[in-house]
C-alpha cells in the first residue's frame, strides 16, 4: 500500500471514531504527539506522588494516613498504566525515564508547588485531582486504543481521590479558626496553578490543533477550564471558602462563570524549571531511580540464575 492509501485509511478510521491500535499504520507526527503526551502524563502521575508523599508520615490520624497511602499508591499505578501505553508506540521505558531525568520530557507544572500544610493535601485531592479527572474523562474517548483503555481504568480509581480531598476541606472548614484559615490559604495557593493545569489559552496553544484533528483531545483547554470553574465554585461556596479571584462572577448569558486570567508568565517559568520545587522533585526522582538500580540488577541476576537451573 502506498502512503496516500495508508493516510486515507487512517483518516477514515478516525472519522468513524474507531480506535487506532499499536500495530495499525499511523502518521509519524501522530506517534510523536502521543509519545510526548502520554509520557508527560505518566511522569506527572509519578512525580505527583512526591508532594503528597510528603504528608504520609504526618497525617493527622490513622484513617487519614491509610487513605493517603492508598491514594499515592493509586497514582503510582496510573504512572505504570501510562508508561506501558507509551511503550506500545515503540519507545522503551528506559528511554522514557531518561527523558524525564534529563529534563527533556515535562510533567504537570502543578507538582512543582510545595505542600506546606495538611490542608494542601485536601486542596490537591479536591482541586488537582478534580482538574485531572476533567481532562481524563475526556481522554477515555481518545483515538489511541491503549491510552483510552488506561484512562478508563484510571477514571474508575480517581473518583475517591477527589472526594477524600474535599472531605478534608469540609472538616477543616467547620474546625477552629486556624483550621478554617489553613483551608482558605491552601485554596488561595492552589487555585491558580490548578487552572494552569489545563494548559495555555486555546489561541496560544501550539499543540492543540493537531490533537483535536487526530481526536486525541475532544475538547479544548479553555472548554475544560471553564467546566472546571463552573463545577468547583459552588463546592467552595458550600463550605464557606472564597475563590481568590476578584473577576469571578456568574454570567447568566453563557450559563457559566466569568473568571480572571491565570498568570501565564508564572506558568512558563515553572514549566521551564524555575518553580519553587522543580529541583527538589527531579532530584528525588533521580535519587529513587539510582538507589533502585541494585534491586533491578539483583532481580535480573536472580531470574537468570533460575533460568539456568531449569535448563541444567
Amino acid at each position, binding site marked *: 500500500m502506498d502512503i496516500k492509501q495508508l493516510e486515507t485509511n487512517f483518516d477514515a478510521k478516525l472519522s468513524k471514531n474507531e480506535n487506532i491500535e499499536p500495530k495499525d499504520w499511523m502518521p509519524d507526527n501522530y506517534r510523536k504527539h502521543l509519545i510526548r503526551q502520554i509520557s508527560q502524563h505518566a511522569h506527572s502521575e509519578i512525580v505527583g506522588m512526591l508532594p503528597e508523599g510528603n504528608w504520609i508520615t504526618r497525617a493527622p490520624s490513622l484513617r487519614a494516613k491509610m487513605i493517603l497511602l492508598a491514594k499515592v499508591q493509586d497514582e503510582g499505578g496510573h504512572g505504570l498504566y501510562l508508561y506501558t501505553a507509551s511503550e506500545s508506540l515503540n519507545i522503551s521505558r528506559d528511554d522514557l525515564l531518561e527523558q524525564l531525568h534529563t529534563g527533556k520530557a515535562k510533567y504537570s507544572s502543578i507538582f512543582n508547588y510545595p505542600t506546606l500544610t495538611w490542608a494542601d493535601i485536601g486542596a490537591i485531592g479536591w482541586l488537582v485531582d478534580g482538574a485531572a479527572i476533567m481532562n481524563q474523562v475526556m481522554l477515555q474517548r481518545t483515538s489511541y486504543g491503549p491510552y483510552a483503555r488506561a484512562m478508563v481504568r484510571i477514571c474508575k480509581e480517581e473518583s475517591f481521590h477527589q472526594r477524600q480531598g474535599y472531605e478534608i476541606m469540609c472538616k477543616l472548614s467547620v474546625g477552629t479558626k486556624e483550621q478554617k484559615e489553613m483551608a482558605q490559604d491552601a485554596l488561595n495557593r492552589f487555585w491558580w496553578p490548578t487552572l494552569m493545569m489545563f494548559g495555555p489559552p486555546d489561541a496560544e496553544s501550539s499543540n492543540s490543533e493537531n490533537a483535536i484533528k487526530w481526536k486525541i483531545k475532544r475538547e479544548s483547554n479553555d472548554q475544560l477550564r471553564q467546566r472546571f470553574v463552573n463545577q468547583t465554585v459552588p463546592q467552595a461556596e458550600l463550605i464557606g471558602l472564597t475563590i481568590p479571584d476578584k473577576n469571578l462572577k456568574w454570567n447568566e448569558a453563557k450559563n457559566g462563570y466569568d473568571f480572571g486570567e491565570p498568570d501565564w508568565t508564572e506558568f512558563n517559568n515553572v514549566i521551564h524549571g524555575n518553580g519553587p520545587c522543580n529541583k527538589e522533585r527531579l532530584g528525588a526522582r533521580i535519587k529513587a531511580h539510582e538507589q533502585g538500580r541494585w534491586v*533491578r540488577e539483583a532481580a535480573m541476576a536472580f*531470574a537468570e540464575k533460575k533460568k539456568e537451573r531449569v535448563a541444567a
Partner: protein
Amino acid sequence: MANTKDSQGPLWEVFVQKKSGQPFVHCGNLHAFDKEMALQNARDLYTRRNEGTALWVVPSDAIVSSSPEDIGPFFEPANDKVFRHPTFYKIPDAIKHM
C-alpha cells in the same frame, strides 16, 4: 546474559478472571523480571479493588497476533457462511422455542 543496560525487566500481559466460571480478560501489562514477580506485580497493580479472583500473566513476546493489514483475507472465510447462524433456517411458526 545480564544486561549491561539498566532495565525494568521484560513485558508481561495480564489477564484477570472476575469470578470463577467467567473468562479471563486482558486488562493490561507490566514489567517484571520473572514469573513470580510478574504475578505479584499484577496483583498489586490490577486487583487492588477486588477486580478478580484469579490472574494469568504471560510473557508478551509469547503472544502471536494477527496483523491489521490482513483483516480482510484472514477473517473472510467467516463472512460467506451464513448457514452457520441459527437465523439462516426457516422453522414452522408453531414451534415457539428451538
